[in-house]
């Protein structure tokens, strides 16, 4: 199935490819991000993973949210300072 990945965390994750990915049915939000890391030959470290926020189609999502064909997954990092 096709998922669109948007990244608002490049300064943390480096140059992962934004855009459409062909991914297996039942993949989770975190699984999709890991696939992007794998394609780029990089590793999703725990400290980066803890700093991320997932959104699917503009709505809040969890790491374990199961994606559907045509979903847009956006990954942001937490910004909590003031």
């Amino acid at each position: 199935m096709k998922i669109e990945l948007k990244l608002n965390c490049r300064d943390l994750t480096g140059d992962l490819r934004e855009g459409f990915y062909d991914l297996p049915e039942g993949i989770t939000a975190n699984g999709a991000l890991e696939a992007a890391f794998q394609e780029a030959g990089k590793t999703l470290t725990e400290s980066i993973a803890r700093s991320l926020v997932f959104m699917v189609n503009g709505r809040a999502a969890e790491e374990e949210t199961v994606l559907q064909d045509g979903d847009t997954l956006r990954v942001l990092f937490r910004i909590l300072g003031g």
Partner: protein
Amino acid sequence: MTGRMIMGRYERNMPAISPEEQAELAGKRVVIIGCGGLGGYIIELLARIGVGHLTVVDGDVFAESNLNRQLFSTEENLGQPKPLSAVRRLSIVNSEVSVRPICEKLTEQNAEQILTGHDVAVDALDNGPSRLLLAAACRKVGIPLVSGSIGGWYGRVFVLEPEHRADFLWEDGNGQITFGNLSCTAACVASVQVAETVKVLLGRGRLLKSRLLELNLLQARWEEIPLDLS
């Protein structure tokens, strides 16, 4: 508000803000939670633009590490309560604005009482749990929240209506990466928050509702992120 007042102090707000709107702002009440990096700029700018009543809430005192970005922090007021410095500053910037300092941290016990009686709350906090608490109190009191947050070169702003929730943006991930806080980022995000606050008060313009504005000053990029909070 008299015509003399408007033609003096607020002359350069015109025509972006009409005389009628200027008078309207004079009667509005805004509560700013946090008097630090974001809060200092927000408080100063709201006062200069003419919002008549500001309640400024912060339980902290100034520390040396605040000097890089907190507008009201100086080498001479280290150790002093932040809201009291806000009062002193506004007394010489715009003495027509009434400023109520609350030198307390926002808690579950005091939040509703602090927020009651205001038209809008502005988030100038520096951590997730306090933002969750503030948003919950805004829901109970029924007022909108102009939320802002910063980290290094990055910042975010959006307007949260009391019937919506955005907890996922503020839930702390233990051990997450931190980015520091730059003066330019604080000033930029605070300025957008002030614009949104004035727009909420006057019922003008297109608000950052259902949209999260993300500023990336390192890449000089501002992006609108669709936000479905329904």
